[in-house]
């Protein structure tokens, strides 16, 4: 499943360090272009939505919107509601895991 863990970790280290370090070094006086920074503000939300969508809407490899077969759908709605209210990663995880376990036992 995991082919080149060392290359993966090294690559991740580089692409994490560069955006954290270089602005600190170079941008203490200059400003980033406001359009670029506004475009970048949309990237995390898009990534998380994409990651979630690629998992939640698929069951056994195919697109599935049936909440009885695809047991990830109902817990996801619950987690979104809780996250909107609490914004807590930990509580979202706890609710998500409990809900999916319950679905798994029932279905």
């Amino acid at each position: 499943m995991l082919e080149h863990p060392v290359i993966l970790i090294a690559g991740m280290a580089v692409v994490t360090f560069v955006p954290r370090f270089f602005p600190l070094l170079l941008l203490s006086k200059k400003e980033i272009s406001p359009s670029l920074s506004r475009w970048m503000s949309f990237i995390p939300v898009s990534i998380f939505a994409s990651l979630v969508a690629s998992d939640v809407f698929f069951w056994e490899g195919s697109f599935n919107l049936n909440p009885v077969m695809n047991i990830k759908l109902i817990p996801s709605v619950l987690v979104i509601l809780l996250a909107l209210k609490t914004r807590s990663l930990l509580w979202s995880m706890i609710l998500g895991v409990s809900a999916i376990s319950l679905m798994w036992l029932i279905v």
Partner: protein
Amino acid sequence: MRRDTIISGVKASTPIMASYIALGIACGIVLYDAGFTVGQIMMMSLLVYAGAAQFLAASLVVMGASVPSIILMVFFLNLRHVLMSASISSFVKDKSLLYLGIFGHTLSDESFGINYSRFQDKQWHPNEAVVTSLSNYGTWIVSTILGGVIGSQFPINTLIMNYALIAMFLCMMVMQFVSKAHILAAIASVCFTVILTVVLQHNIALVIATVLASCIGYIVENRTGRRKGGNSHA
């Protein structure tokens, strides 16, 4: 460095340490579950040190994504740090290259959040800031290793563990809902991801969907005027 500098730096870090212990253990478990050894988990926390990126890597490895596409997604995810690093740079501009290297490497979302607000609010010395960052960093490393060890000792239901990740990404997504345009970008990203995944049958769909949805969010925000929104710091 003075003793009280270290004490006040560590003190500032305590609420973050508590959440890093819980999330770090979870992260270690999912990374172990994805096929990383405890040693690799330690190296990753030490060298990468980015919670969201490490969870992302675990998830993409499980999906069978290639190494370059995982690195590309991690890069996109980390672009938000450009904004944080740039905005905190004015507080540490006279520091040495070594200081900036350490401060930059340990600039997680949470370290940024706590240090930036303290720099703005009151007298916060760059040394206190780096102590806070380093104690967050140490906590994360130890917790992920612990998670890896726990993962290696107990069999874990993969459906449920994998869903713990999804629940976390859902919450991270919701935390980014700072304007209507951001919510729209999320919806667009969901639609693009589903369509492209069905059509392409390849997880490059995630990269394309992310870039397209960010552009849509940006265009919509431009059309509807700038106002509030715009603040990306989660």
